[in-house]
């Protein structure tokens, strides 16, 4: 019996490689069918003979024909994927998942809060916003990282900071004297941003603990929890909601998410080991 999960892996060529940090790289992969994607979606990338891993798409939604994936080396599959170079082949399934609510953010203020590798699935949001800047009002980007050397997309962050129509704040958990920016956890930057809470959409991505505290800070600003969105991470294998691994409460993170309104998932996130 052929099921949705048996939809084959497509073999695609890697056409670009960029090292972001000591343990993180970005691969640019051809997308000849120009399937496109929505910010927040992910693909299952397959390293021949080793396995698949769910990797967020971190590129530009308006650039058809390629997708960028930012991969952190944490296990055997991501290690194999990180060693691919232009000309190599990689298996791709996707894109999958419910992405960030870009339509809901149009016409209002937007706050993007990214922690660590959480900036990867949020970069497409910023790129899409900048591609149609007039459609949004005030846009704040708050970025936290472990240390300056572990900041992703540094050059791009510099560009964003240079713009007058974007409020970008970056903090690191620890740094040496060469770092001239703030030091501390990303959540303390949130009370400083200037948005109209009734008209603001919040998008948060990072480790689960960080997302809970960041959502709490956004809530303290007066933004309703149904307007705060988080991107959850669980063990994703089939990516279509039939293998059961990625469940968090009643939700399949792969197909009901990975992006959820915080109001929907908060009650379950509060249960230990759910």
């Amino acid at each position, binding site marked *: 019996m052929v099921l949705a999960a048996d939809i084959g892996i497509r073999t695609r060529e890697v056409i670009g490689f960029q090292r972001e940090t000591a*343990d993180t790289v970005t691969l640019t992969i051809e997308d000849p069918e120009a399937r496109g994607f929505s910010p927040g979606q992910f693909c299952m990338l397959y390293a021949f003979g080793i396995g698949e891993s769910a990797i967020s798409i971190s590129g530009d939604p308006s650039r058809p024909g390629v997708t960028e994936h930012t991969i952190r080396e*944490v296990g055997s599959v991501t290690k194999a994927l990180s060693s691919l170079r232009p000309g190599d082949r990689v298996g791709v399934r996707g894109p999958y998942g419910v992405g960030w609510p870009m339509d809901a953010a149009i016409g209002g203020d937007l706050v993007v809060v990214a*922690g*660590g*590798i959480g900036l990867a699935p949020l970069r497409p949001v910023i790129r899409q916003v900048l591609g149609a800047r007039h459609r949004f009002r005030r846009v704040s980007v708050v970025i*936290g*990282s*472990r240390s300056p050397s*572990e900041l992703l997309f540094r050059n791009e962050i510099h560009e964003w900071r240079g713009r007058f129509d974007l409020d970008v704040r970056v*903090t690191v*958990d*620890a*740094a*040496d*004297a060469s*770092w*001239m*920016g*703030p*030091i*501390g*956890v990303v*959540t*303390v930057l949130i*009370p*400083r941003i200037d948005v109209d809470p009734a008209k603001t959409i919040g998008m948060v991505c*990072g*480790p689960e*603990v*960080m997302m809970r*505290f960041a959502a709490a800070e956004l809530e303290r600003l007066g933004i309703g929890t149904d307007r705060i969105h988080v991107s959850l991470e669980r063990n994703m294998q089939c990516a279509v909601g039939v293998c059961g691994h990625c469940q968090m409460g009643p939700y399949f993170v792969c197909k009901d998410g990975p992006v959820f309104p915080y109001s929907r998932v908060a009650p379950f996130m509060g249960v230990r080991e759910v």
Partner: protein
Amino acid sequence: MCSNDVLRSHQFCKDADTDFVMHLVSCGPVERSWEAGRTILTSGETADRLHLIVDGDVSIGLHTPGGPPAVVQTLGAGDALGLSWLIPPYRWAFDASAVTPTRAITIDAAKLRAAMGEDPAFGYAVLSRLLIAMADRLQATRLQLLDLYGPRR
């Protein structure tokens, strides 16, 4: 001197009644400023004032032997800088420097302690606000310690 409006609109006085603000005013708050790179407090010296940061980034760090100062945290607008002025023997535990040009409202610690002793209701109000500020900071520091973005152990 410091205009009452600047004091009143500081985070430390959020939702405070006039009584509270006037008590602070009676301690003679002064607006100060520092250029980027200037030292605000030095660890070991007498903790004789409370700084309420109005604007700018202030780094909290420690001077370690044989190396540059290790910065552990940055405070900013709305934060209360300094707690050791309340705790004997009233000596600063850390260094603090202005990373960017910084403005703050500075209040004499001895006068503040005296006012708190004379009027326990005011003393209670000051302690409550400091406690909330410190609880937030402790939470933030704990999150920092968790090294959330670090490699999984």
